[in-house]
């Protein structure tokens, strides 16, 4: 079944059908010709837009980089807190840590947001609304799984109602570990995401594993 909302019932918010997020099928979202075929397999890439369709071809490469620069520095997050991590996420937005320094502000409507920070435990009842919100966000969009609950179910993995990580529902770009992650950790996650956006546009990919090993060797 496709990612689209076809299975939704007639009455408002639907019954959630537990269905594993299938990356192959999900690939349709990003890899098809309709959505920029050349960008297959490089993460979330820009959807067709006015400028790209008006000026295709040679200049798009540079334009992509410029766009990536703009996008990376203007990540608007969805005002969307689920559980405990939401408090630390809000802390990061507030005076002491001040996410606004990075140009990050929260926006209440998914239509105007770029990043969904899934902050907290995802339960099965909430799974469908999350997928709906993700689909409502315009491309390009990113997801940060904040905390162990959103990453893998965390301390609640034995529960009957908890989803074992939000990546069963939506594709995740950055996982931030911690229970809950400190605001600094979330900032690090955001900076990683900014790098990912810029490097994706250049056609490079960060080898985080290698970087971490190098860091450890240098330390």
């Amino acid at each position, binding site marked *: 079944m496709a990612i689209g909302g076809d299975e939704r019932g007639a009455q408002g918010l639907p019954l959630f059908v537990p269905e594993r997020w299938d990356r192959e099928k999900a690939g349709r979202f990003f890899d098809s010709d309709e959505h920029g075929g050349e960008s297959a397999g490089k993460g979330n890439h820009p959807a067709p837009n006015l400028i790209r369709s008006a000026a295709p071809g040679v200049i798009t490469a540079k334009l992509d980089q410029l766009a990536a620069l703009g996008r990376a520095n203007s990540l608007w997050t969805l005002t969307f807190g689920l559980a405990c991590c939401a408090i630390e996420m809000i802390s990061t937005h507030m005076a002491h840590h001040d996410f606004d320094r990075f140009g990050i502000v929260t926006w209440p*409507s998914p*239509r105007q947001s770029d990043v969904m920070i899934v902050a907290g435990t995802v339960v099965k009842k909430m799974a469908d609304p999350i997928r709906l919100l993700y689909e409502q966000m315009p491309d390009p969009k990113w997801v940060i799984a904040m905390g162990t609950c959103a990453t893998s179910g965390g301390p609640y993995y034995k529960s009957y109602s908890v989803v074992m990580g939000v990546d069963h529902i939506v594709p995740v770009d950055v996982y931030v570990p911690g229970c809950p992650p400190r605001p600094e950790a979330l900032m690090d996650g955001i900076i990683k995401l900014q790098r990912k956006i810029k490097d994706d546009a250049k056609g490079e990919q960060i080898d985080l594993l290698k970087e971490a090993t190098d860091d450890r060797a240098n330390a």
Partner: protein
Amino acid sequence: MSLELMDVVWVSLWLFTLLNVVAVAALSLVWLERKLLGRMQGRVGPTRVGPFGLLQPIADGIKLLMKEDIAPGSSSRVLFFVAPLLVFVPSYMVWITIPFGRDLFVRNLDLGLFFFVALSVLGIVGLVLAGWSSNSKYAILGGFRSAAQLVSYEIPIIMTILVVAMLAGSLSFHDVVLAQDVVPYAAVQPLAFGVFLLAGLAEVGRTPFDIYHAESEVVGGPFVEYSGAHWAIFFLAEYINTFMVGALGALLFLGGWRWPVGDVPAAAGVALFLFKTYAIVAVIFWVRATYPRMRIDQLMSFGWKVLIPLSFAAFVVTAFQMFYGWPIWMLTLLSLVILVPPIYIQLRWQRTPAMALAKHYAEIAVAVHAQPRPVPVAAVTEAHAAPGTEDDA
């Protein structure tokens, strides 16, 4: 009069320049707001993008332009995409007649004030259309709220503009500024200035009147379903309107580019005008950082029961002064006299009973007194059992 080709070119050039100036001004407001709010809230605001975060609005703009533009499947597509233009075009058109300096304007219309009034009402249509065509309940609520709010607050604005027009004896911005050589109208008619500022706040939907796009209630109101470039147009229009209120305040009440220095070089005049404009805008942001939002019924009753009578009072007082030829300070005095009671009542009506109540609550709070503490026993309490061995493995 025949339209020459050169005229068309010149006008287009002027309009294009104006568009850029206004857009840059709006972007500067975005930056200023984030920085100012940050400072007022114990933060720093954007710092990472460019020096002092100056490129932050540019980054936002690039991102918004390159973002996917979604029209919800159930929306009325044509109206959905026309609505942002209906909001943006009038708010931009008004600038044609705004003089930045003595000779710095696109067209000095003789009916400039009238032109402004006529165009500023048009934006409401766009907001209502945006709310209706989105086919979202939040959007339609926001659209209705904006219609109710903007139409009611248009009246005090028009009345205060009329006061200025009477005082200056002209409907042209240029003449209004020239008439304020000695005393700005903010000093002549403080009542009208105050009403203008409050109604202006409501007109551009700023706190405490940001009801139609209240985030915690209607999640952005008419704009809730918009994304990408179309949303950016709304966003831009909103800031252009804020700048417009600042500019109008500077021109109509603070003497534009002339008062208090008289004739100065054009650049200095423009700087003076911009300074006044930004000062008013900063006050608007300051109010935003301070006040909560009003409720829709309170907003309407404040508009109809306070602001509109006050604006009529200003109008009548000015008419009397002009008819009987009283000295100008008499007008200042009268308008201050009218201004003081409502401010006093508005402040005292809520605050005094609440303070009395707070005092009462301090009295009825139930006091719990400490019991004498027993002499602490130093011995460690042995509990449950001696340390076991079978569990510790």
